[in-house]
């Protein structure tokens, strides 16, 4: 395996490409999130204050229900997204994206690239947009969304979000069938080179067990309520709105909800009300960020 298409090389290539396009390079948000979208650099920044915002960052994502105890070659409860958010959406954004693929060793002209309709909606964020899944030879390698709403608020100007599924993309580029076989660093195994499995297999096993079997649900229920209360408190004092910490609590609640969901302790009818509660936190935080809460 050459060092050129290693997992870490793909990340650094994408980073430098998007830096060249004028993006600020950020680091992951330091909480468990279900998708790169949750990062305040996306959710809050597309609502202002500056109508021009360009950012790129890697975000580890956690989807507890997708855990497979390390036994499935394609599903992980923890994985990486590379997120690009550009506002207003540039006219040549599709080409900018296609161009980026060349930098990670994937020339679109050598493949069958397709933009397949995929309307995106995040019920917990009260966010939605239209866009596509991007297929490369039948494999979904990225998602592309024109943000229309976040926190139930119209996004103006419209932002374009590109999300690269890094594992999928790397598997495609390295022609690997099992995610755990991905070459992480491009170094020879004998000289200490690491695969994705070397680094994450144990984590997948342990967290799958935790997510599905061991998490303490009564504590989680309490944590959810605590986060909700704190979020409300932080947005209580109209003269002293703490939008960012409030949104931080919203992210926490969202992940706790996902953990509870994985334990199967939320019934179908309760589910809707939990989603609504997270959405309300997101909406209030967004409004506070814009200075429009209680308006």
């Amino acid at each position: 395996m050459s060092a050129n298409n290693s997992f870490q090389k793909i990340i650094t290539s994408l980073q430098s490409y998007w830096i060249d396009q004028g993006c600020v390079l950020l680091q992951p948000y330091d909480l468990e999130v279900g998708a790169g979208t949750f990062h305040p650099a996306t959710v809050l920044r597309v609502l202002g204050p500056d109508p021009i915002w360009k950012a790129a960052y890697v975000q580890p994502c956690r989807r507890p229900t997708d855990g497979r105890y390390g036994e499935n070659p394609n599903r992980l409860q923890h994985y990486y997204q590379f997120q690009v958010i550009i506002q207003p959406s540039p006219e040549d954004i599709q080409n900018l994206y296609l161009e980026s693929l060349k930098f990670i060793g994937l020339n679109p002209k050598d493949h069958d690239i397709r933009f397949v309709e995929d309307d995106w909606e995040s019920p917990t964020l009260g966010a939605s947009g239209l866009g596509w899944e991007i297929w490369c030879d039948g494999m979904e390698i990225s998602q592309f969304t024109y943000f229309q709403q976040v926190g139930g608020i119209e996004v103006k100007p419209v932002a374009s979000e590109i999300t690269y599924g890094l594992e999928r993309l790397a598997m495609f580029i390295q022609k690997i069938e099992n995610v755990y076989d991905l070459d992480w660093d491009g170094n020879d195994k004998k000289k200490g080179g690491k695969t994705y499995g070397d680094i994450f297999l144990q984590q997948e096993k342990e967290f799958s067990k935790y997510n599905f079997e061991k998490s303490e649900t009564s504590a989680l229920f309490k944590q959810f309520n605590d986060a909700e209360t704190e979020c409300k408190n932080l947005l209580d004092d109209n003269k002293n709105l703490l939008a960012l910490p409030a949104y931080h609590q919203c992210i926490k609640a969202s992940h706790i909800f996902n953990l509870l969901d994985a334990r199967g302790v939320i019934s179908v009818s309760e589910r809707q009300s939990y989603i609504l509660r997270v959405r309300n936190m997101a909406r209030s935080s967004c409004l506070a960020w814009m200075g429009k809460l209680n308006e």
Partner: protein
Amino acid sequence: MNSMEKSRGNLLLEFFSEEIPAMMQLNSEIQLQNLFVKSLTKRNIAFESFKTFSGPRHLSIIIKSIELEQKDQEIEKRGPRFDANQKAIDGFLKSNQLKIGETIIKETNNGKFYFHSQIIKGQKTYEILPEIISEIINGFVWPKSQRWANTDLKWARPLRNIVLLLNDDVVRGKVEIGKNVFLNFTNFTFPHRYSDKKIVINKIENYEQLLEENFVILDRNKRLDKIINDTSSLLDKGKLKLVNDKSLLEEVVGLVEYPNILIGSISNEFMKLPREVLSTAMRVHQKYFSITDKENNLNSKFLFVANSIKEKNRDFRVIEGNERVLKARLSDASYFFENDIANTFENWNEKLKHVLFYESLGSLHDKIIRMANISKIFAKEFGVKSELAKQAAILSKADLVSEIVMEFPELQGIMGGHYAKIKNEHKEVTKAIFEHYKPKGVSDDLPETKLGSLLSMVDKIDTLVGFFSIDKKPTGSKDPFALRRNSFSIVQILINFKINLSLNELFEPSLNEYGCSSQSIKRNLIDFMIDKLKYVFSYKKNRMDVVNSVLNTKFINDIPIKIISSRIHSMSKFTENNDFKIFLANYKRINNILKSEKFSNDAVLQVNTKVFDTIEEQNIYNLSKSFSKEIFKKGICEKSQDILINYLIKMNEPISLFFDNVIVNHIDHKVRINRLNLLKNLHNSISKFSIFEFIED
């Protein structure tokens, strides 16, 4: 000829956007044509013909021989009356900036008036076009649309370029798509993504070919033909055939600009999965077509349509990539399948207790219990064993919590059937679960087996009654629980299997299960079903008037559906029969007399036989009594409907004689009333069979 050429030319309009969802394209083509034609007609600009195109990014229309100048328009304004006072006349002149000599006086139906007629000079077409294009863009309705960057305009996906050529020249102008955001009209468009070069359109007549040379086939029918032709030439060599999938084909046509048919292989290890799992995984996620051999066995090859130009190395790479993706998908599916096989129906049913069917309608587990109870009651009518009917209902929803159905909801029922088979359930039960979601619409196949039909019907009755009982019946175009489709399916099963159940009997057990005793809910359900019966009978090519006449019969909800069906069938046969036509004429005559007397429909009237003074009256009296008896005896016998109609026909002579020899409008009030009552009773008696008023000549 020459002047004609100068006054007309061709027009090309192309909306170039980012990839429009496949299923919206065809409709957008139709919309473009309708909006454009409407805008031109409104402005008196004539044209000869048009052709439209749609694909992922190009949506266009060519209008042939369009007038280059709008026709002059004469606008006539009416002023005050000729004899109006001077003030009114002056006012008219002033407001139109006219002198009295510029008006004319014309005679109308209401008298003489001042008129002023004005010729409005037609504008050049190219001058009006920007306004037309803006009208079209703003008039467009997409099922889902979006803004982008700073636009206010909503389009299915960002609109990036507008080509507007008239007589091969670009029309100068632009449209506003946001505050101070404009799109200028251009004479260039974009080729297949393999090239980034703009292509300039010099001649409208070359437009289609120019794009094809740049690997964009604009005409969706041409793309479809290419897919079909290339496929058959690829497959014929191997004696294989494509599984017919029209909607997938239509979708794929909207996903590619230059179709390239490629064939890949399914890894052998997955061929043990149920066929439906394989084809669904391929179809839903990957939009691949399944291939079978002549004996209809699934082949280990699959077919897909790439958006590319044939090129050996690339094709090889693309196939390899797709095979790898499929392998990942199928290893997921087989992981779920293995887990499911290790699970049990008991376990799944236990889980169903925690899955809500609908708020206040209980869990899915509650639903299967209700279904089992109703199934037992109807089993006999379907000629199936009550125990099997119950078992099928109990196992029917388990697969909804199986892993594979969670992943592929469209496999519901099918997987339940497979798993029941694997768990050695009774063969009939297995098949019933497998097919109990059928039929999925008026044109879908029915379940093949009686048990499957019973299960399907009972499932749908439970859903229908449940939602009606909580007042969630469909309103207007809103039918979120697909109750209309459900009831169509019930009706089709009832008719097809000639089920001896009336609408009353059909709903009673289910209403009991829900503990619902409301008469108005029951009435609503029955009215709803009668409506669907009408639709299905007319869909089956019965005359609407015949269907209406039978379904409006009093107490229709007590008549078994199979009798209703056979009565409609018999009536349809007789509509061309001359004797039957005479009967209808007689009936109409009676009806008209009764109508003018304003008898209420339900009136039952005493006839005094002692007042009769003709044999014809007595005959009519006997007829009406004996037909009532006859319909009581034979009315609910499926095969007797023809006999009953013949019975009606036999009334022709006595009725004719009655009208020839008896005066209804007798001077003696008592005699007159008695004769009217006599006719009313005959009418009542006939109406037990059908309301013939509905039959049209």
